[in-house]
Structure formats: C-alpha cells, structure tokens
C-alpha cells in the first residue's frame, strides 16, 4: 500500500563548496540552493565557518532532489566538489565520488601565516605540494582554473566566485536563465554587470575546456617544481652593528621576535644567533641610537 504512494526514491545530488573565509562560499551555496528551489526540488544546505573571519576554512554541503533526508554529504558521494582555494579543494577531495564526480577548483593559493614553520625569508610554507597538473590527472572530471585572474581581467577580482558558478552551471542540469536571475538577485547592484560577465566567462571557459584533450587542458597549469621558485628568490641577512653607538638599552634584545640578540660583557649588542635572524628589521627600527643596520641581500650562489 505504501509502495503505491511513495515514489521510487531517487538519490539526492550533492555539491560540496569549499574555500576560506571571505571568498563567498556561503553566497555561492545560497545561489545554488535558490536555483534548485526554482526547479521545485527540496534542498538542504549545511555549512561550517568557524574561523572564517581569520582566514580559516569554510565549507558548505548542498543536497537537492525530490526528497532529501540528510543535510550532509557522506564521504565519496559528492557529485561536484567546488573549491575556491587550492589546498581546501585537496583537503575535501575524498568527499568526491570516485566514479566521475566533477572537481572544479580555483588554482588560487591562500597560504595562512601559520603555514610557515620558519620565519626565515624565502622559507617554504607547509602547504599541499601537489600541483594542479598532478591532481587533474587523478580525478575523473577535473577543471582547474585561475578564476581570480579571469575575474581580474574583467575588472572585478571579487567576481572570481561567479566565474566558478559559471563553470558549475555547466556541470549541473539547470536552465541557464535560472542561474542568471538568481545571481542578479544576490549580488550588489553596482557589481551586477561584472558578475554577469564573470558568469559567462566561467561558462565559456568550461565549454572550451570540456572538449579539449587532456594534454591541452594541462598545458597552462603549473607543475610541482615551478610553483614557487619564481615568487621568492632566496635572500641572506646582512647584519651590521655600530658598537660605539650602542648604549646597551636592551630594547633590541627584548623586542627581537627570534631572540637572537644579546648584550655582551661590555653591554654592547651582538648577534648571538645569526642562523635564527630573519632580517625582519624590528631591532633596527627600534634602536634609539641607530646602532643596528639590517639588510636582506640576494643570496650568493653556493660555491661549487
């Protein structure tokens, strides 16, 4: 009897949107949820944005279908994983369906300060070493794009999330007009034009890439080695003390974040731990007697 009235249970579809605080993860999931509602579907959305204000991770589960019971997506069952930040995408990768789930990721890297275990200039952060090229080769259906760059070229870098919505819209089955209308209702009036363009740019990018052969799609993505090399050239710290001017006030010693200065027996400052000095220059700025000079100079090539 019950079988008569109950529809054949269709499995809900699941989209996981992740990023870091301030990127608009919640705004994007709201847009998606509203688009789903327009189709007469049931939608459940649940989000966590605990440390969002401090650049921490934000994620939002969106599940839609005829009937949705659970608001959260089980591991390995997301039909789409949309990542606005590269490492956040990797963090959630095991939520993506193995059989053809779509991974859409901005290659933007937002490296939190605490990822730097060493404060030395040029030190490498503890950040996922996997390059977009490697990950794209692993997932079934992958889109890695520099959405921020695309949005910036359109004149509004903050519309990067709308570029990604454009890509997402090509992976889901909803009419494009619904997306356009919902976006228009949810962005500030003065950013409307930029967001319209961004949405189209995302769709165009996805269409061009979907049909392109894998080699072509990987062409512009950075590999593991060339990720950071160009960004930070190594520097060494040049540290000069004018001992005759130092009055032993102790300010530099106490204010050095690395605790690498001390006063010698004559109450003159000396660099006791050159290895630990990051070249931050706080000691130079705070010395009332101009006795310290710190410079970061290009590192010399190691002598072979």
């Amino acid at each position, binding site marked *: 009897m019950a079988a008569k009235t109950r529809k054949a249970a269709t499995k809900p579809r699941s989209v996981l949107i992740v990023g870091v605080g301030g990127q608009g993860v919640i705004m994007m999931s709201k847009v998606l949820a509203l688009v789903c509602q327009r189709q007469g579907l049931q939608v459940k959305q649940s989000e966590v944005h605990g440390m969002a204000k401090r650049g921490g991770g934000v994620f939002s589960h969106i599940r839609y279908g005829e009937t949705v019971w659970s608001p959260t997506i089980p591991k390995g069952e997301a039909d789409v994983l949309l990542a606005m930040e590269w490492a956040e995408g990797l963090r959630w990768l095991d939520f993506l369906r193995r059989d053809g789930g779509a991974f859409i990721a901005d290659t933007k890297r937002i490296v939190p300060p605490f990822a730097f275990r060493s404060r030395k200039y040029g030190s490498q952060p503890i950040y996922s070493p996997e390059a977009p090229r490697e990950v794209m080769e692993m997932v079934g259906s992958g889109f890695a794009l520099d959405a921020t760059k695309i949005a910036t070229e359109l004149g509004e870098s903050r519309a990067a999330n709308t570029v990604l919505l454009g890509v997402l819209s090509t992976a889901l089955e909803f009419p494009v007009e619904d997306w356009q209308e919902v976006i228009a209702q949810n962005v500030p009036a003065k950013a409307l034009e930029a967001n319209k363009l961004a949405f189209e740019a995302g769709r165009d990018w996805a269409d061009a890439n979907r049909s392109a052969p894998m080699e072509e799609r990987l062409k512009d993505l950075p590999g593991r080695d060339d990720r950071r090399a160009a960004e930070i050239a190594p520097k060494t710290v040049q540290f000069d003390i004018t001992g005759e001017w130092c009055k*032993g*006030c*102790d300010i530099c*010693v106490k204010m050095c974040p690395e605790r690498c200065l001390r006063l010698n027996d004559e109450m003159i400052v000396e660099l006791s731990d050159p290895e630990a000095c990051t070249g931050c220059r706080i000691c130079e700025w*705070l*010395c*009332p007697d*101009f006795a310290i000079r710190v410079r970061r100079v290009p590192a010399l090539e190691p002598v072979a």
Partner: protein
Amino acid sequence: MAVAESVDNFEINDYLRLEMMPHFLCPGCGHGIAMRALLWAVHELGIDKNKLAIVSGIGCSGRMGAYVDANTFHVTHGRPLAFATGLALARPDLEVVVITGDGDALAIGGNHLIHACRRNLRMTCLLLNNEVYGMTGGQVSPTTSENRLTTTTPAGNLEPVFDACKLAEAAGAGLVGREVTLQTPTLKDLIKEGLAYPGFAFIEVISDCTEIFGRKNDLGNSPEMILSQKKSMRPDSYGTVVDEPFRPNSLPTGVLARNDRPEYGETYRNFAKSKQGRAK
C-alpha cells in the same frame, strides 16, 4: 599574491652629522626612535637635505635637531614655532619641520602653538611627548599623567592632563595626528602625511623618558616602557592586534583631524602681490 619588496634604500647615516654621533640621549630614550621615523619619512618623500629646515626648541627633544645633516636651527625654549613661522614665510621653498617637547610646546610655548595652528602656515610640527621635562631633570609637564611622580610633584601629580591633539585641532591645525614610537613604520607614514600636507601639520609622538620619568615611576627599563605603549595605552594602531581584545584603555592614533582651509603663506603672498606698486 606576490609579495613585492618595497624599494627601501633608506640609510640613516646619510642624514646624520656623523662627527657628532653618538647622540647625547640616555639609553633607550624614545626620542631617538622618533628621529629615525622623521628622517625615514624625509627620505621616502625624496626631500633634498638642502631644502630641509629643522627648527627645534630646548629640551632633549629639541636637541635632536642638532644631529641632522640639514639646515638646523636650535632656538630658544618654547619658541621654535615662532622662529619657524618667520622662516616659512620668508622661504616658502623650504620644507620646515619643528621638533619640540611637551614642555617646550605646551608649557612655555603653548601660546605659540595655538597661534601656529590658527594661522595654518605650511610646516610640520613634531611634538615628542614623554610626559615630563626630561632635560632639566624630570619636572612635571602639562602632559604628565595624574598621580605620576616627578621632582616637582613628589607625592604625585594632581593636575589634569592636556590632550595636545585636541588642543591643536581646536586651534585650527590643518592636520592632526598621533602615533607611538613602537610602531615605527606607521609613525614614519604619518610623518610623511604631515610633510606632504599643504598647511600646518601637528603630530604628537608618544615617546619615553626612560632614565628619569621611567625610573622615578618604576615603569621598568627601556623595553618594558616601550612595550607599555602596546599594553597599557592600547593605541588605535593596535586595533588589529588580538592578544588582549578587551583591554579598556584606548589612545586614538593615526590622523585624528583634518581641517582643510587656506594656507597662510599662500594667502599672505597673494595679498602682498596685490598691494605691490600701490604702496608708495
């Protein structure tokens, strides 16, 4: 986001009279840090040393002018603004900077300060406020906090404190700002704003008299005194620091007031031009 290394080729020695160094300030005196910020700002604005005129009054603060390799005038107590007024009127091509102390500018020179603010003649006034007459051994000043010990208030100061910035604002200064020495780069940026301002710019620097005021009031040694700028005063410039978010004391810092109005030198020269040839 690539971290652009700012072009920073400031060498303080290029701006010092090296033959006079080391300077005479006590160990850890905050006035030295304020000096660096000033010279750094001068450098970043590309101001020619030959066009820089530093007029300073009497006090440990005023004495700092003597160490700068520029045109320096070390004048009478309380009168650097009066001298600077004449200089700026006669030589509008010069970048005039006044270095003064809380005693110099607010006690004996309080009169000159309010009239300099009122005129809005283009110059920058740096008031190095250490709450005390440092040079003469630690007498009470108009900015000595209540209850503080000085040689003239051996049982604690009862007089209310002057807020130099409010005074300058009320008297009409074009630009009014305040910063602590601990925030040296921020202080440098504020001084730059003052130097670039086309009118009278008044900047109060919260400085420390470590040897006399600090010792008398048991405020700790130099590092502790400078750190208290962060701890007990909590300037607005630490608004983003989250170590103790509910600290109550607040000291407004940054640009506190702007009153854009005609610069007096310009007004004066135009007026003089309009009269030329007529008077005979």
